């Protein structure tokens, strides 16, 4: 087994450890450490880091856990993510977490925050409301209050207050993390055969369950390997996958798209890790202000983000062009109102820009992979033959 493969195996194991052993070990290694679980998508992990905490992404149970209890909590027409999360909570996978944060994604995740309150999972359960007003004096002030609420919550757990130094240090570490991830994406744009989309997914997802310092070392190692030629180029098309920003697709689906002849050169899986575009000021005397400013001005696009004045469709087209993609794959979770309601307009923008597209739906634990592979294969063939 080569060195990269060892790293990749470690990442896969960590990414899908639904007991979060690594994070829990980290917590138990020293006093006053705080473990905060957060739901997709973006959450400024820096603030938890700055109070001796680890923010851990709870991305759902995927296809790694049979859902039994969760199905007693959600009707069949509710997306799959919350039932997987509830299953984990009731199965004690999330024990030892001190609190949970539910970013404002949609009505399901919002109500899930209330469920956690009712079952009293964790010492705190916080719905993290994004402002949909983006002026610093209004939306910025609101967002800052949201950050402060989390800091109050963690203070009640470990009695630690944050400092400018600790916040700036955390911001610097996460800046590094985002930069390394972006470098991986940039290399994959040019040489996608060097690291498969599935491997990339594992590497990113693992980063949600370990300290950022360790993840940065892993990213550097992966970058070192893929900076050199490896693998073999295939006659594949290049696609951007859009619509899976919250409920994560089963790995089999990502694999099916790749096996059908598509290199995924960009996507919105694990989008929270890439949410802020560029670096946040890590030398500010007001680091909470810097984090706020970055959210208001450096956020990427997603369906949970109000976009009048800066439409998502146009930004998707820009991304596809920047990545020199041949097409777009719309891949949304079933019953995902935000992604599915955006899709027609985004498809229109792609049509207007002459970008071919194809569309799938999935549940986090299942997808009709054979059908998806055939559709993706036909999509790939049609582009290769006719474009």
């Amino acid at each position: 087994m080569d060195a990269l493969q060892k790293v990749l195996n470690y990442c896969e194991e960590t990414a899908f450890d639904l007991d979060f052993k690594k994070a829990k070990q980290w917590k138990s290694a020293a006093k006053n450490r705080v473990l905060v679980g957060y739901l997709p998508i973006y959450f400024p992990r820096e603030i938890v880091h700055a109070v001796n905490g680890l923010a851990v992404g709870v991305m759902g149970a995927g296809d790694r856990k049979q859902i039994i209890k969760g199905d007693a909590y959600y009707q069949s027409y509710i997306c799959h993510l919350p039932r997987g999360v509830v299953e984990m909570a009731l199965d004690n996978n999330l024990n030892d977490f001190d609190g949970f944060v539910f970013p404002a994604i949609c009505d399901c995740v919002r109500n899930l925050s209330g469920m956690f309150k009712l079952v009293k999972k964790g010492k705190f359960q916080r719905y993290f409301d994004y402002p949909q007003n983006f002026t610093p004096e209004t939306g910025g002030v609101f967002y800052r209050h949201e950050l402060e609420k989390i800091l109050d919550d963690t203070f009640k757990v470990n009695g630690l207050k944050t400092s400018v130094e600790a916040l700036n240090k955390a911001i610097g570490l996460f800046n590094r993390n985002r930069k390394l991830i972006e470098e991986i994406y940039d290399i994959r744009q040019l040489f996608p055969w060097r690291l498969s989309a599935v491997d990339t997914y594992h590497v990113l997802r693992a980063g949600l369950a370990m300290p950022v310092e360790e993840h940065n070392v892993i990213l550097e190692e992966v970058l070192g390997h893929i900076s050199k030629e490896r693998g073999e180029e295939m006659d594949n098309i290049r696609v951007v996958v859009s619509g899976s920003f919250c409920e994560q697709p089963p790995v089999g689906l990502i694999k099916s798209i790749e096996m059908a002849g598509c290199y995924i050169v960009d996507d919105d899986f694990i989008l929270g890790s890439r949410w802020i575009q560029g670096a946040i000021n890590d030398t500010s005397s007001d680091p909470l202000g810097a984090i706020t400013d970055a959210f208001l001005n450096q956020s990427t696009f997603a369906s949970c983000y109000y976009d009048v004045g800066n439409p998502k469709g146009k930004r998707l087209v820009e991304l596809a062009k920047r990545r020199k993609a041949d097409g777009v794959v719309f891949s949304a979770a079933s019953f995902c109102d935000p992604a599915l309601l955006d899709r027609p307009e985004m498809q229109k923008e792609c049509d207007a820009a002459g970008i071919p597209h194809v569309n799938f739906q999935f549940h986090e634990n299942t997808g009709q992979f054979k059908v998806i592979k055939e559709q993706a294969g036909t999509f790939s063939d049609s582009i290769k033959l006719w474009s």
Partner: protein
Amino acid sequence: MANPKEAVKEKSMVIQKEMLAKQFSELSKAKETGKKVCYTFVPGNLIELIMAFDMLPVYPEINALQSGMRKKSGGYIKDAEKVGHSEDVCTYVKCDIGMFLNGNIGPTGEKLPEPDLLLLSYTGCFTFLKWFENLNRLYPNAEVAMLHTPYQEDGKITQEQIDYMVKQLKEEVIPKFEKVTGKKFDPAKLTGLLQNSVEAENYWVKILEMAKNKPSPIDAYFAGVYYMGPINTSFRGSPECVEYYKELYKEVKERADKKLLPVTPEGEMEKERFRLVVEGPPNWTNFREFWKIFYDLGAVIVASTYTKVGGVYDQGYRQDPSKPLESIATYCMGCYTNLNLPQRVDLIEKYVKEYKADGFLINSIKSCNSFSAGQLMIMREIEQRTGVPVGFIESDLVDPRYFSYANIKNRLESYFQMLEQRKIILEQEQVQA
């Protein structure tokens, strides 16, 4: 299946019908009269502010529900699906988009005017945000004003949240109104309208609380959706609204004094067998036959959560004319779907106890995550806390494909049998005691 008879109309119903006719007539003439049109949503609506600028409101979700009642929604939804919308998503949105694709003909058969202002206040429903992004693309010439209403995630409204909303009102919403209408904001006019609102709200609460009588003189769900129309949509703040609720209260009070049961489309109910609290919106495509299942079996809804989407007034909230903008902000954040799940459970528990309900029923709506996500848990909590039997049925807002009359009737009949059995057991226990 139901065989509808001629609906019975009370005086208040005639008054409301006239109010609506006048409103749609004004809308149809908006271009000629130069009145500006504001599209907005029902929960947490800013109708007093809209009136203060002499604008005419249009509520897309009301258009959708009326399309549902007129059996038009099925076609509209299919048309929206033809242009790429998924089967999974909110059917109100698809119905509205389908109506647009078919010429935007409103409930009176006349074309609805295009919006001058899209006023997005997404109280308690994230999908509203997506809906207005779509509307923004359908009506690119309209101004868009966004009012972000913070969720009551901690079970309370904080001063910081109020300040945030007031700032948005002052800096985002009111300037857009001024720009579109060319009129300067007049706080005194808004205050006057809010004074009318308070009066209507007082009557509304008295009407809802009449259901505490045994037998209940009103049905607080099926009839409740008619009763709530003026205060929750276009008329709150107007003198006509106060008059409507005054008249309605008089009628309901008379019925209560005479120990009469609710009026249904087929006349007065004769016996109150079951008193229920209901959670969730009703189905609109088969509204009358849905209701008939209940009144045929003697089930009266004594309290419902759906009638609180426009404000939980019965828990004490009133507009405050002395602080108009703060009052509007608090109103928006206080609507039912902006309450967190524990608050919703507490409220329902209170209704079951205070209204002496025999059971609690959820009508879970397939395409409304705001209401539906979490309802199974609500159901279990209420059962544990109150001991009343809970029932669960599923339908949709305006997609006729998701209303199965036979299934719903079957489930309800079984549920009512359970309630009957429990009554017998409770009576026997009382005798033995």
